[in-house]
């Protein structure tokens, strides 16, 4: 079946603008994760959704970052008033349940100029 998809694949934006990134998880996966990966760095956990439970937002770096997910469907990650340090690849992953293997999307490469 289809894997995790993300859009857009690349996004160039001016400093101060808002951006919205989209993630389509694998059908039937209740858990969805967002990560940030700066060039040459590891995976920085941002936020986790599990079904209709309250999300784990402990990784969000500032209140400029927010994310939504309705049920077990699409998720959007919004970054307001983008800064140059927000430039990174934003990866989305889904899993059948928390603790199971995660399937990653191809990522969105965000460049803030």
């Amino acid at each position, binding site marked *: 079946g289809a894997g995790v998809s993300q859009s857009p694949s690349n996004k160039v934006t001016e400093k101060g603008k808002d951006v919205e990134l989209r993630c389509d998880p694998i059908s039937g996966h209740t858990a969805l994760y967002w990560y940030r990966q700066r060039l*040459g*760095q*590891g*995976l920085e*956990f941002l936020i986790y959704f599990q079904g209709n439970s309250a999300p*784990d937002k402990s990784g969000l770096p500032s209140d400029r970052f927010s994310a939504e997910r309705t049920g077990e469907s699409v998720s959007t990650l919004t970054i307001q008033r983008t800064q140059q340090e927000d430039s990174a690849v934003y*990866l989305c*992953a889904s899993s059948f*349940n*928390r*603790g199971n*293997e*995660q*399937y*990653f*999307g*191809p*990522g969105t490469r965000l460049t803030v100029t």
Partner: protein
Amino acid sequence: GQQVMQIPQYQHVQEGEDFTTYCNSSTTLSNIQWYKQRPGGHPVFLIQLVKSGEVKKQKRLTFQFGEAKKNSSLHITATQTTDVGTYFCAGCAAGNKLTFGGGTRVLVKP
């Protein structure tokens, strides 16, 4: 909170040689997972270890889970250029929360 450390951060290896990368958790794990990220790609799940002392092999890759379920290792024999990439371990602990290590970046010298 839980911390997962990987060493070394970088591994330069001659083609054909063996090497091992290590993963250490600050807490006891219920399972540990390994992922590989090729340059320019996204992480891809390789394997999951659940039992204390478990050893699993995938062709030239051997994965081991420590007896105390706090550490793991990945050993690659006869390294090939296709092994280039970053190998992440991820430890699953309380509440089934998965924490990724910082990764070992493998570079192969032909």
